[in-house]
């Protein structure tokens, strides 16, 4: 899995202030409205995928691509709202953002034992430990977002370490989503750092 956001050299302060004060109105509200309905469709496909994996050991390729695009959409929205990227995030699964990269390798086969393990015990060995750690990390991310806001306002940029930390939080969330959505059998690491080596990429 590869997830990255290219850091931009400088921010437009006009757009930045507009997003800060009215972003909820022209970005969050329309995205949330559409995401609500597409989310219902997504949950239907997740449910069906679970049964397909159980009986065939494969994730339907079309569903997989749809879910990767859904995650990319969520990340696009988060990246813009967290001031990690500029520009209006495209609404819909077909959209993209020039600064954001999300590549998830399509698994040719998935373990049915892990599928059942996740369904019945995933809460205990995945959700609880990861959510606890992510909660702490999200607090730190919130603090950095607040500091970044002032940094952008006065200097027009975000310090690279802060930027990478916040991108790492999103990366962690993506990995957790992928695992809990049965899109990979690799247990997500307790880290937001990128994977050491790129694996075979099937879906972008």
């Amino acid at each position: 899995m590869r997830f990255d956001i290219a850091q931009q050299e400088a921010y437009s302060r006009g757009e930045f202030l507009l997003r800060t004060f009215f972003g909820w109105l022209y970005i969050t509200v329309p995205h949330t409205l559409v995401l609500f309905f597409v989310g219902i469709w997504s949950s239907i496909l997740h449910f069906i995928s679970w049964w397909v994996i159980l009986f065939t050991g494969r994730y339907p390729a079309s569903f997989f691509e749809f879910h990767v695009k859904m995650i990319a959409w969520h990340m696009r929205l988060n990246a813009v709202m967290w001031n990690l990227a500029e520009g209006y995030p495209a609404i819909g699964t077909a959209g993209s953002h020039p600064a954001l990269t999300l590549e998830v390798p399509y698994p040719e086969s998935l373990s049915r034992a892990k599928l059942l393990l996740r369904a019945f015990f995933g809460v205990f060995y995945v959700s609880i430990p990861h959510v606890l750690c992510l909660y702490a990390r999200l607090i730190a991310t919130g603090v950095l977002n607040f500091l970044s806001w002032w940094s952008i306002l006065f200097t027009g940029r975000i310090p690279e370490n802060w930027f990478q930390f916040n991108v790492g939080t999103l990366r962690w969330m993506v990995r957790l989503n992928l695992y809990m959505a049965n899109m990979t059998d690799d247990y997500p690491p307790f880290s937001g750092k990128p994977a050491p080596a790129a694996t075979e990429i099937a879906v972008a």
Partner: protein
Amino acid sequence: MPEAIALPQPHELSQREKDDALAAYLMNFAAWGAGLPIPSLNLIAAWVYYIINRKKSRFVAFHCFQACTSQIPTTLINIAGVGMFVDYVVILNRDLPRFFWPYVVFAAVTNLIYLGTSIYACIRAAKGRIHYFLVFGRWAYARYYGPNAVTLEAAATGQNLPPAGF
């Protein structure tokens, strides 16, 4: 007289087509997936799935069309049952009519038969085979492989066609 289109054989189909076709029948469980107990949700999901997949390949479109249209009778039966319950109990605040519980049994049996048939069709689709439902199977065949399939599709896309009979 136009000729029917040759049916694809299992070895000619890609895994992706087979997966897309089998998923069409699993839209029967959409209401469970969404967690919304709405009787028409399965039909809506099947229709949305058909709209998304109808241009992918004939094999996929055939299964999506059959899965979608064959849901109409059971959906109507379910809506009638739920409607009757809501009408008598919630709106009119009266006792249910005597035929209500026999109707529920009839609806349950119909749904079970339909689910069984759908699962069988789903397994056949996963193997790249076709299972024809009563009435709807012929309709879907006529729509996607029958002698008029090409004409129907051309008309649907707004293409110019020769006069009838040529």
